[in-house]
């Protein structure tokens, strides 16, 4: 039976290369202790994977001014090159490093790979991607992108048409900068979290201003734009010509680690012309920096994490001060702004008797639910009370626990999930679905998966039901696999039998079942298919007979299920007998 395509390939299926191209034709040397450059040069994929997972900077340069991707391309290790590219190695032809990689590529296949990734740079994380979309959906900011793409630069504008004025990502900015007469729209909290300078300014001079005009001629619009874009997306793309301006701005903004990297790069670029392999038009030359090149504490998630910590601390302080919050809230309805200077929170969310101070832009960028709630609520009850201007707007969310909400906003701010208890998983799934935070489901599933290895069949049935309900494919597949492989064990479990009763019956229609052995699962609708159909499919994979006898096997399985259901019916009518009957693992 052909194996389903591995996810590794399926996401790259539009690259015009065969899978066989990615396997080396000669045995490769292993470099068990090599660094990323040696591993790339040798094509030692295992070592490389280990290094990348341990978090080395994929775009770092060695003593010979070369990046790891350069070595992989030079030596023609397609698999190593792709691994580097998928981990964020820069290959844009307009950059020094990318140009070298393109030029040094051993053969056309390598070049094709580079081209494919150039058109589609490594995807941003969900957090960075969401904030970036928010930034770019501000009308003033789009102008520069359009202009830049016209002049041959390529910021990747994804997800929305650049001409649609009201894109679905739009969330109104709360501050506009005018630099050299051109506007940049931004959100205070993002800038504050990334730069101490902006933070101080927003707390003092610019506290009540929605518009800041920089009159200094020296401040360059493209440089500041690049920086602010970087603040949102953790990816810096700047024309080499603008880099000096950018360094100056970094100095003012106290973005020290970025400044250091840029200064180093600036020196490098000075000599890059001598090292460049061919002439690239200077105005087209770019420098691209991934967040990965910065120390962890200066990346976007860490910055937002700090802000979140402050907000949470403030929230709990308020809670402790305000013991009677339950009683008071109907009257107050909102918090006083006066003691909230540090966290720049602009929204309060009340969940299960706790109040969380949050930031609208983060909530809105991450969750469409919150965006709608924050921008279009005038018609509903929630938008009725026009709040006095000195209080924070206030939301109330019911039906979930404060703990789950806290975890959720932690994820929203940082893309990370720490210390999640498997007990919380269900609630987290619920929250993720409800707030349309689909990446969170995957994150929770990843945490939950190791835990599932040790649970009883009864629990597994429970998780199967849950994962089916919330559409967590990873868990659902895992559970189905487990059940299919150990079918008899499960058949002996009364919870499993009970579950069978609650499920919609499998599609008895044999035309839906595969009769063509060469296309197993061709009819499976991966997303919302019938659980039992999927189970049968998995079971056939594990236990069923080959080819011609498949249908007989399927029939056999269906009969078995029917039988189990009959048993379950009987058990149901005799609840006392079933109780604890098979409860052995």
């Amino acid at each position: 039976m052909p194996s389903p395509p591995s996810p590794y390939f399926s996401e790259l299926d539009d690259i015009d290369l065969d899978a066989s191209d990615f396997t080396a034709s000669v045995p490769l040397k292993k470099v068990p202790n090599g660094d990323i450059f040696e591993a790339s040069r040798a094509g030692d994929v295992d070592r490389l994977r280990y290094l990348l997972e341990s978090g080395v900077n994929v775009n770092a340069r060695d003593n010979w001014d070369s990046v790891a991707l350069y070595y992989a391309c030079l030596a023609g290790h397609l698999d190593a090159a792709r691994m580097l590219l998928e981990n964020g190695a820069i290959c844009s032809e307009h950059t020094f490093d990318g140009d070298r990689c393109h030029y040094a590529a051993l053969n056309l296949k390598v070049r094709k790979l580079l081209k494919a990734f150039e058109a589609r740079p490594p995807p941003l994380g969900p957090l960075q991607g969401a904030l970036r979309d928010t930034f770019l959906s501000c009308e003033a900011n789009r102008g520069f992108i359009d202009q830049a793409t016209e002049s041959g630069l390529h910021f990747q504008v994804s997800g929305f048409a650049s001409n649609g004025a009201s894109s679905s990502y739009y969330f109104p900015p709360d501050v506009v900068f005018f630099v050299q007469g051109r506007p940049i729209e931004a959100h205070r909290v993002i800038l504050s979290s990334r730069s101490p300078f902006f933070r101080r300014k927003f707390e003092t001079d610019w506290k009540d201003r929605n518009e800041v005009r920089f009159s200094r001629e020296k401040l360059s619009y493209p440089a500041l734009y690049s920086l602010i874009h970087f603040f949102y997306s953790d990816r810096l793309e700047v024309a080499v010509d603008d880099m000096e301006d950018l360094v100056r701005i970094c100095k003012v903004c106290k973005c020290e680690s970025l400044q250091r990297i840029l200064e180093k790069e600036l020196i490098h670029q000075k000599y890059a012309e001598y090292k460049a392999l061919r002439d690239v038009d200077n105005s087209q030359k770019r420098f691209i920096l991934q967040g990965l090149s910065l120390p962890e504490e200066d990346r976007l998630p860490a910055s937002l994490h700090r802000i979140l910590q402050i907000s949470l601390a403030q929230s709990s302080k308020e809670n402790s001060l305000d013991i009677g919050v339950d009683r008071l809230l109907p009257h107050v309805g909102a918090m006083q702004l006066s003691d909230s200077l540090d966290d720049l929170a602009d929204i309060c969310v009340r969940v299960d008797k706790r109040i969380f101070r949050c930031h609208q832009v983060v909530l809105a960028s991450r969750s469409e639910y919150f965006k709608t709630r924050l921008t279009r609520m005038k018609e509903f009850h929630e938008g009725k009370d026009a709040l006095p201007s000195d209080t924070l707007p206030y939301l109330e969310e019911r039906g979930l626990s404060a703990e789950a909400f806290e975890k959720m906003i932690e994820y929203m701010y940082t893309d990370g999930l720490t210390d999640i208890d498997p007990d919380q998983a269900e609630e987290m799934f619920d929250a993720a679905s409800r707030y349309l935070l689909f990446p969170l489901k995957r994150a929770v599933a990843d945490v939950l998966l190791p835990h599932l290895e040790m649970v009883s069949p009864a629990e597994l049935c429970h998780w199967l039901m849950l994962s089916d309900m919330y559409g967590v494919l990873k868990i659902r597949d895992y559970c189905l696999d487990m059940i299919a492989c150990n079918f008899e064990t499960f058949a002996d479990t009364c919870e499993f039998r009970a579950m069978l009763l609650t499920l919609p019956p499998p599609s008895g229609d044999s035309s839906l079942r595969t009769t063509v052995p060469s296309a197993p699962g061709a009819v499976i609708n991966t997303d919302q298919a019938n659980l039992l159909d999927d189970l049968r499919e998995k079971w056939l994979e594990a236990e069923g007979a080959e080819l011609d006898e498949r249908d007989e096997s399927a029939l056999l399985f269906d009969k078995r299920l029917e039988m189990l259901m009959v048993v379950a019916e009987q058990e149901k009518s005799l609840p006392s007998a079933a109780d604890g009957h098979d409860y052995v693992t």
Partner: protein
Amino acid sequence: MSAQKKKAFQIEAFKHRVVVDPKYAEKTWKILEHAIHEIYNHNASGLSFEELYRNAYNMVLHKFGEKLYSGLVATMTSHLNEISSSIEAAQGGLFLEELNRKWAEHNKAMQMIRDILMYMDRTFIPNTHKTPVHELGLNLWRDVVIHSYAIQSRLQAILLENVRRERSGEVIDRGLMRSITKMLMDLGPSVYQDDFEKHFLEVSADFYHLESQEFIESCDCGEYLKKADRRLNEEIERVSHYLDARSEAKITNVVEKEMIENHMHRLVQMENSGLVNMIVDEKYEDLGRMYCLFRRVPNGLVLVRDVMTSYIRDTGKQLVTDPERLKDPVDFVQHLLDLKDKYDKIITSAFSNDKTFQNALNSSFEYFINLNSRSPEFISLFVDDKLRKGLRGVTEEDVEVVLDKVMMLFRYLQEKDVFEKYYKQHLAKRLLSGKTVSEDAERSLIVKLKTECGYQFTSKLEGMFTDMKTSQDTMQGFHASHGANIAEGPTLSVHVLTTGSWPTQSITTCNLPAEILGICEKFRNYYLGTHTGRRLSWQTNMGTADLKATFGKGQKHELNVSTYQMCVLMLFNNVDQLSYKEIEQATEIPAPDLKRCLQSLACVKGKNVLRKEPMSKDIADTDNFLFNDNFTSKFFKVKIGTVAAQRESEPENQETRQRVEEDRKPQIEAAIVRIMKARRVLDHNNIVAEVTKQLQSRFLPNPVVIKKRIESLIEREFLERDKSDRKLYRYLA
């Protein structure tokens, strides 16, 4: 893992299940249904978004998505039915406003409903391939409201009526129209097209059909075009105000078809105001408008161009065949130039310099200029006239302009070699008589001819200039060496002309007077002394002489005459009366030339230095000539021209033709040989085609002549006929 923990799981696991009972779904749906009602009733402010969202979310989560969705469809449909009937109830003009208002409300409600049901929109709908909520709202609005029987036709009628009213000059509410058409567009391009655009175009076609009929009966062409133009702009403006931009092409198409294409021929040929009249009256604005409008319809410009071409050809043909015009070549060419200028102006100012029009103009000129076989001669004469006197006191730029125009006419000529013949003759006359106004202008024209026709076309002309230059040097040398010996005799000035470069004329000698003969002999000796191996012959028919004559009353005059006339007059130094026969015998001047020169000496008033007996206009062989003692003139210098028509007489013309034909023979033969050398074997038709192509820049060879040349070449064994195929020729040697 403890059992207690598992228990905890178990309880949680069925947390949802507890609420999942049919009643739950029913109850939740009731809440949501109520909310939708409230939203449509503008009572949403009492609703909690958070609660509604949560309810909808839970319904979908617990697999009641289908129920929710179908419930939504049903509720929305019922609301839209109500709306539909309320719109139907609206009276007259309020109808559109009501529709617009309801549409806005529906839009708003739709957005709120979508927000509430966002979870369903994001998960349930894509998975089950249903229509998203927003689109569903649009579809229902389309099906229930717009396509309801009472509304659909009424809406359509009102929209069309509004357009009609605006066309007839009334003011309508464009904003409202805009919102309504925008609504139709929002409902999908097919709705806009089927419910409005299609009918709109039909009605427009009818409207403009009638209107154009009416206009064409009552207006002249210019006025009609003005109206059509205005209508067209109105429609474009209408589209920009309240229609879909994509309709512009369609509606303009309708207007073009009805107003222009259908009446195209009638407009162009309209009596007293059609295209021809516009051209005659030089109505640039109307012509420009016609061009702009006709350009929009297929074949429009072709028609205009064809009519213009045939008009130009007709008028041109009249001009070149008008016998009156043929009398004055300069005037004739000037007319051609004026005509060209006029059409050029029309094309640049009215037809936006359209290349196809320029080509049409050029081909028309080429057509009619070549209708008159004397065009090459006339053009050469025109140049001659300009270079003799016409360009005096004119700046260099203007000279260039005139020459360029001449070159333009030259380009139209098919028989360029005929022009060359004449030009050579005229140039020779100009050079020998020293009447050229400007050497620069002469050379400039030669350069132009060279760039146009290549080196060989002008090599002889340039040779003539070289001859003039070397002659000057030779004369200086002659005077330097013989200066002392010939000081008392007549002054001699000789131009040594290279045979071949100059227009050859049969050498007709005459007896030069003895005084001259001596010095001529001296020059001959001098010249042959410096250039051995050459032969000099005197071209007495081309020279001039200045004579000092004393008349009866002691009056002294200087007579500027030709060499022949000089010979005749010198005879009268010794006698006072001579008969024609005596003169002829003494000078041996050929009879026609002698007659002409005697005519100019005796018969021209004011210049009659001789007296003829009997007095008559023509010279007869029996006439007697007397020295006219009574000759008077106001001027000291008297120029006595030969009575030689500038234009060639008919026999001369024939002769030139003959010579041209003769000259063409070797050229044709050369071309044939060149082609055959390259091809080796070729059939007759292809040879004719290639020869024609090669010689096109000089003249259009006659196929019959080509055939004769081929035969002659076969005779001389350059070619042979193929043995099997008589049509094939082979190159020999």
